[in-house]
């Protein structure tokens, strides 16, 4: 630890301590009469209004990994990395269409997770299990990647990364995660909901200052785009092609659009996104938020531009090279070289706290999935709310320890590969959840077979894709029918085709339909506003 930036490090420690106090205090924020209920621990009492939901969803969906990885991608390949902006624009009209309906269905039956909806809609334990397992499987590496985000900041600060001793090296991460696990265990969703305020304030301040201050120091946007364009035009010696382009090329348009669409469709299939939706107090809270959450997309777009700023800063290029060409360090390095130490500390805190909020929500969401769709469904159908809450708390600890193990034991590439797979996998639950909101035409066995086909196809296709110096899992896009597209979209198409073809076949074979407990297909029971619903105390 020879080159620790003391000022920046002190600011990071102070903000971490402040957030820790808030996390523990959150247990007393609008305390519930009975805190030992999954609606309380796992969904913050299902009472978040427009304001809190905005911070919660924003803090939840725009993760630290995004803040590191998106500019890193732009830094490396240019315009193609901007699909992340398209994706976060596209996601809101799509969410506008189905999320209010999903919220109502969940509120009406007291569901805490989307897997319960799939199970209830089709009367199929298997389908519920498939959705729950996919969610847990996709979430674990996602949590691990939040740690990768923290790690890149710590490396640049000179904390841990250079030490030879593995334990000392990882100590800051381990401490941060133990503290996070403790207050999440205690306060449930209320903790990340409150901390999200701090996270977002820090992110907005950092981004607004950076977007005004850094270009002025670098000699204006003309210079920044010029430097980026010059780099992107140079030929990459390993591939023999240019590194990238400043504008998406015609051959890259399919990949760009399908990555944006696939990611947008998949985002709200992730358990942590659904948790943010289900925690809303009323249906209109979601609609209002859809119109307000793009504020974060704008921030993401500006953060993506950090990639070009980093490219136009020679010291950052040198630093990335010195760390073995790890472009994930470009944003922390940009802060280090452009800001005075104290403000770099604010920026680092924003990224670190930006990792803690989603990590907490993801572990809670995965714990909810395990509790309702595995523990309740297969082991203890008569569990009391208190038992459920105890199981969920433990499950959230297990998720975090698992993610920590992922981040520390397995190499980083493995986590990133798994996260790439997670995006492909999670989209395969779309038919069971979203299409299920509109029609019960699909046969439950057809949906399960479709899901399995999409999972297998996507995994095999990703395995067979080389790239970036790797023989397997090298890219999230692959050529299908003459166009290079996002593998998740291709797998999704396979999934849908199988489900559509098998449904009439299974009906003809007279395989029984499941009992639809949601009653969504009866117009009188359309839970347009959830007013006819009980507020979800009973377990279906």
């Amino acid at each position: 630890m020879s080159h620790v930036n003391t000022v920046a490090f002190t600011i990071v420690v102070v903000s971490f301590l402040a957030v820790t106090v808030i996390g523990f205090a959150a247990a007393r924020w609008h305390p519930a009469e009975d805190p030992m209920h999954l609606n309380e621990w796992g969904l913050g009492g299902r009472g978040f209004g427009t304001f809190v939901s905005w911070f919660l969803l924003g803090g939840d969906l725009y993760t630290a990994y995004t803040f590191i990885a998106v500019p890193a991608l732009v830094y490396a390949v240019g315009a193609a990395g901007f699909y992340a902006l398209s994706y976060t624009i596209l996601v809101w009209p799509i969410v506008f269409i189905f999320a209010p309906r999903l919220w109502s269905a969940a509120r009406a039956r007291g569901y805490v997770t989307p897997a319960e909806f799939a199970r209830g809609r089709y009367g199929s334990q298997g389908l519920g299990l498939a959705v729950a397992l996919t969610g847990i499987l996709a979430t674990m590496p996602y949590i691990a990647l939040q740690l990768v985000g923290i790690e890149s900041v710590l490396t640049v600060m000179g904390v841990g990364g250079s030490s030879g001793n593995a334990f000392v090296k990882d100590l800051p991460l381990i401490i941060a995660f133990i503290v996070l696990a403790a207050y999440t265990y205690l306060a449930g969703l209320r903790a990340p909901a409150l901390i999200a305020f701090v996270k977002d304030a820090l992110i907005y301040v950092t981004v607004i200052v950076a977007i005004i201050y850094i270009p002025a120091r670098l000699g204006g946007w003309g210079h920044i785009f010029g430097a980026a364009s010059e780099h992107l035009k140079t030929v990459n010696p390993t591939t023999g092609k240019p590194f990238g382009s400043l504008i998406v090329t015609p051959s890259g348009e399919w990949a760009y659009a399908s990555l944006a669409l696939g990611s947008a469709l998949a985002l709200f299939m992730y358990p942590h996104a659904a948790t943010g939706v289900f925690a809303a107090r009323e249906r209109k809270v979601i609609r209002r938020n859809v119109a307000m959450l793009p504020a974060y997309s704008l921030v993401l777009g500006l953060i993506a531009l950090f990639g070009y700023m980093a490219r136009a800063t020679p010291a950052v290029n040198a630093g990335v090279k010195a760390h073995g060409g790890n472009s994930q360090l470009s944003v922390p390095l940009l802060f280090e070289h452009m800001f005075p130490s104290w403000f770099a500390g604010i920026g680092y805190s924003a990224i670190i706290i930006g990792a803690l909020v989603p990590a907490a929500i993801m572990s809670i969401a995965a714990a909810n999935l395990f509790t309702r769709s595995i523990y309740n469904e297969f082991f203890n159908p008569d569990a009391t709310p208190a038992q459920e809450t105890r199981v969920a708390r433990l499950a959230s600890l297990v998720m975090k320890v698992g993610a920590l193990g992922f981040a520390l034991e397995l190499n980083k590439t493995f986590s990133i590969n798994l996260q790439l797979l997670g995006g492909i996998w999670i989209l395969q639950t779309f038919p069971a959840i979203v299409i299920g909101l509109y029609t019960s035409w699909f046969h439950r066995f057809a949906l399960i077979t479709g899901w399995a086909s999409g999972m297998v196809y996507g995994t095999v296709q990703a395995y067979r894709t080389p790239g970036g110096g790797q023989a397997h899992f090298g890219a999230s896009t692959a050529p299908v029918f003459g166009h290079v597209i996002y593998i998740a979209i291709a797998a999704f198409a396979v999934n849908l085709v199988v489900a559509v073809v098998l449904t009439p076949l299974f009906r003809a074979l007279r395989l029984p339909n499941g009992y639809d407990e949601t009653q969504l297909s009866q117009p009188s029971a359309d839970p347009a506003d959830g007013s006819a619903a009980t507020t979800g105390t009973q377990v279906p």
Partner: protein
Amino acid sequence: MAQSAPTGKRPVTRVAITVLLLVAIGGTLVVPIYARSMPKLGDFPFFYWYQLILVPAVAVLCWLCSVLLRAEPTAAARPADDGEMRK
């Protein structure tokens, strides 16, 4: 996404909402619209400023849709939809 607009609303509202949402989705998804560098806005190539401006534009479109839904007599008649804290 044929059934994009929520059911049980007036046809005019449904059509309007469907169109607004399709514009929002299409403006993002049809990449050739914006995969070009001209015209520039300041030093920003079209590709960048188009997408950055698209963000608030889509927000406004979604906001219009939610206003349209709220203005629906059927929706307004539902007390719970406008009610505050409900337990």
